[in-house]
Structures are given as structure tokens and as C-alpha cells.
């Protein structure tokens, strides 16, 4: 599942996910993302940090604090690349942290690592 308030980014990421052979769903903000997670139970969530409403950190914490959703992989995508944000990101329980602009090649690699257990 991809959760980003920027439609162009949603589109590019879902295209990449699609190309790699996974099924992609998109959400425009944190609240919608949470609903989607509960209904469609994705294997992995790509989260933008700065979103209107619920932020990526909050959503990540929400996912990691519930028994049912704890095993979902979370990759945080953020424009903020400062060291503190990175620490906050891992502190909220994220499995991976990528700064924008990210490289689709890296994203493909990470997807395979997390979902198939191999590069």
C-alpha cells in the first residue's frame, strides 16, 4: 500500500510496485491509509511522513502497536532528511527509511529484501 498526499508520487511508486509484480493500493492521507490497512491487510506500507491529518510517524506507530498489523513492513518516505528525523523514523518502528527524492532502483531492491527475503 502506498500512502502519500502527492498524486504524482503515488502514481510513480504504485507503477514501480506493479512492475515488480506486487499489487498496489494507494491512499491520499493517513486516515484513509489506516482504513485501507484494516480492510485490505497489505504486506508492506510505503508511508509519506508529512501528510495533512495523521502524519507518517503516527500512522507507523499505530500499525506497529496493534497485534493484527504489527507484522506489516513499513518503509517511511520523507522529504526531511535530517539525522533527527531518521532517528524518529526508526523510533516509531519503521523497518526502512528512505529520503525523497528516492531512487526507484533502491526501492525495488528494498521491496524484494523485505517481501521475498532476498535482494
Amino acid at each position, binding site marked *: 500500500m502506498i500512502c502519500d498526499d502527492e498524486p*504524482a508520487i503515488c502514481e510513480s511508486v504504485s507503477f514501480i510496485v506493479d512492475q515488480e509484480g506486487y499489487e498496489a493500493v494507494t491512499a491520499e492521507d493517513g486516515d484513509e491509509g489506516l482504513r485501507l490497512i484494516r480492510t485490505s491487510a497489505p504486506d508492506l506500507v510505503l508511508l509519506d511522513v508529512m501528510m495533512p491529518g495523521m502524519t507518517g510517524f503516527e500512522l507507523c506507530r499505530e500499525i506497529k502497536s496493534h497485534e493484527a498489523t504489527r507484522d506489516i513492513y513499513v518503509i517511511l518516505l520523507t522529504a526531511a532528511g535530517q539525522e533527527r528525523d531518521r532517528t524518529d523514523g526508526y523510533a516509531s518502528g519503521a523497518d526502512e527509511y528512505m529520503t525523497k527524492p528516492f531512487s526507484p532502483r533502491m526501492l525495488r531492491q528494498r521491496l524484494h529484501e523485505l517481501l521475498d527475503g532476498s535482494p
Partner: protein
Amino acid sequence: MRRPGIVATFAISSAAILFVLGIAVTAYSLMQIRSVLYDEAQRRVEAQALNWIEANTPQIVLANADVLSRLIADFAARERLAYALLEDPAGRVLAQTTVPADLRSESSDIVATTARSRVYGMMAADGVHYLEVATPVSASGTGMSRDLSSMFSIVSGGQSLATLRVGIDTRELEGRLRALVWTNAPLYSGLVLLAVVIQVVLMRRLVRPIAAIGRAARSVAAGDLSTAVAPGATLENEVGELVRNFNDMVARLEENRTDMQALHAGLEHKVWERTAQLEALNAKLVEADRLKSEFLSTVSHEFRTPLTSIKAFAEILLDAPPEDRQQRQRFLGIIDSESDRLTRLLSDLLDLAKIESGFLEWRFAEIDVREPVQQAVAAMMASARAKDISLELSAPVSCQVRVDGDRIQQVVNNLLSNALKFCPEGGRVSVSVECFEPRGRTCTADGSYARVSVSDTGSGIPQADLPRIFDRFFRGSNVARGVKGTGLGLAISREIVLRHGGEIWAESEPGRGSVFRFTVPLAAVKDNAATANVSEEWGHHE
């Protein structure tokens, strides 16, 4: 050991002076009295001797030793003489009383010479001093003559029959002198004591104020300036002057200290005030700093977002381009529009920075405010038509303003593009220009301004967002997704309007659209001056 005080010192020194003076005076007086006593004694004895000689000259002439011895013994006893002896010119004793043993002259000198006698100082073997008066017995017929010249002629002529030597015991004289000393010494000592007591009393009256000043000075040194010296303050002498001056000085010190304390308190208050000012300023700076880093992080975010899309699609197209040509076209279109977005963002940021830092060149000119508004509306016509929005302009009156026309056009542009963005298809956007002149006539008074309003029939702005919509990068909570913008348009508009001395604000009722209005002051100054001149001329003509 404590040294004696002033009073004691003066008392001791006076006593010493008076004592020494007393001794000296006493010694001198005793010498004088002594000489008087001796003098008197020898005169008395001489007179007695003469009387005796006068009365007994016949017997002396007869030189009857027995008779003479009896006579001379009677004489010595009657007059209480130490001794008496009669000797002839050859030195043979004719008659005598008991004479002290080993009687001899103390010196060969004659102590004194009276009218008819010579006086010698004699000393006996037992150390007793005697005063001896030697009186010659003349051989004149009667022996009654008292004529001095004839008397001495007889003596010198060797016609002296005999010499009567009479001794006076000086112990009696000395005893009288001693008695005199013993009676006077206590009296003198008492007088000295009285003088010293009087001096002590007087000195204490002077010293008491000085001691009080000493104590007061000590308490002044300890910081107590409330004490005034009471004793001696009314004295009409130097000490009184000192006391009064000291009290004045302490009072002046007190005044100065009060002034100093007031000054000090003022200074402290000032320091406190300045510190508070500095703290407030510092808080402001800290806040400004915080806003700046927040702004930087927002700007960074705003740049990264379009860059992310560009990067992602570019890499997709490079690595694994989609089969579908249309999809490839679409991806390229996104890259293109996101690049435009970056460019707009950059130019808006630069505009804002230039305006805020004062580097922007303003080209102010006196124009009709309708000109830039009309231009902006004309430029937006096409986009309005594309969205099937009716764009109307109502500008009935000319409004002369002194503005930078391009910048005002930029403001109207921003407001219009926002209005078109948020206005649904088939809606209406209207622009109006009004001229407000409180005096109703020409543009003469302050408070006259032109107002430009842009209203739309969009969804409106929630009341809570209204105060923040002019902030940079603020995005309304109900702004639909996909609505693109740099987030800086309204911020730039506000800066431009403020620079013109005007105001900008928004009014909105959710669901019923919103109105953005801004004002700029009318170019009144020139017209005003012209009008004033004209009326003045008329005044002269009348």
C-alpha cells in the same frame, strides 16, 4: 595602656607649671624676706647698741671691768642677744658675755655697713651662724653726737675708745623664715589645686563635645548618618563651630546618601528594564530563528516533492519504460509539469526574498489602479473560459494611485488564479475596483483609498483558516487534492500590498464562496497640493 586624655594632660601640665612657678616664687620671696629680716635685725641691734653706748659711755671711758661686765651682761640679757663684747682698739677685751667657742669670721668681708656700724657674718665651732654688729664707741665729750662725719673722723682719727660687738643668733631668723614657708605652702597648694579644678571643669566643657564628635564620627563610619552631636552645639566658640559644622556635614552626607540610593535604585530599575527588553528581544530572535529553520525545512520539503516525482518517472522511463506509449507520454508530461512547478516555486521564493530583504526594485508611478487590474483580468480570461467560469470586472470610477503597476498586477493575478482554482466549473468570479474618499469630493484627505475585491463562488474558507491563509506554505484543511500551487502566492501578495501602505484580507462563508480584498492609498498628495494652491489664489483675488 591608655594614654591620659586631654583634660588630664592639661591638668597635669598646669599643675607642673604652677608647682615650678610656686617653687621659684617662694625661693625668690624667701631670699627677699630674709634680707629684709636680716636688715631689720641688724638695724634694731645697732639702735640698741648705740643706745647702750650712749647710756654707758662714762663707764666705758672709766673702763671699770667689773661694772662693764655687769652692764654688758644685763644688756645682752635684756635684748636677748647671743653675745656681746667690748674691746679696745687694740683688740683687748674690756668686757664680755659668754662668747661661743671658736668664734670666727666667715669671711674677711664686711657683710654690710650701716650708718655707724659694720656687720660681719660669724660662725662658731658648733656650726651656728651669727650676725655680728660692730659699733665703735666715740670719744667725743658727750658721746651724744650723731653727726656722721664727726663720728667717722673720730674713729679714723684713732680716738675710738672701744668697739661694741654684738652677735645675733641667725637660727631665730631662719626659724621665722621657715615658719613663713610652712604657713604659706598649704595656702599656695590649695590655690594651685583650685586653679587646676577650675581648669578641669572648663576643659571638660570643651572636651565633651569633641568626644561626642569622636563617637558620632565612629557611628558615621559604621553607616549611621542619623546621629547629630548635641553637647556643645550652642557654644559660641571654636568647639561650637566644630560641632555645628560636623552636624552640617553629617546632614549633607545623609542627603547625598539618599540621593545615591535613589540613583542606585533608578539604575537597578533601568538595568532590570533593559534586561527585560533584551530578554524579550532574545525571545523574539529565538522565535525568528525557529521560524527560519521551520521555513527552511518546509522549503526543502517543497523542493523535494516535485523532484521526487521527476526522479522517479525519469528512472522508470530509463530502466523499465512502460509498453504503452500513452503512458510514457503521461509520465513525461508529469516530469514536465513538476519541472514547471519547481521553476515557479523558485521564482516565487526569490520574489519573496527580494521583497523581504528590500532588494526588489520598485517602480512607483501614478496610474489609474484599473489599468493593472484590467490587464490581469484579460490575462486570466482564457483559463476562466477553459473552466467555463464567468469572469466579470466592475470598475466604474477612475482611481489615481501611486503604485508599482506590475506588482499590483501580480497581486491581482495571484488572487484571480486562486479564485479560478477553487471555483467549480460553471461558477462565477467577479473583480471590482472602488474608490473610497471619506470627504466625498476630490482625493484630499488621509484615509482615502482604492479597494480591489476578487470574489468567487467556490467552497469558501473555514473560519479557522482565515488568519493563516497569507502565511507561507499554508494549505487550507479543505483544499482539494491535486490543487497545485507554490503556497507562496498569498504571502507575496501580502508583502506587496503592505509595501504600498495598504491592507489585504479575506472574507468567507463556507459554502458561499470567498472574497479577497486589498487596498492601496490614493495618490492624494499632488492633487491635494494643487487644489490648495488654486483655492489660495482665489482667496487673493477676492
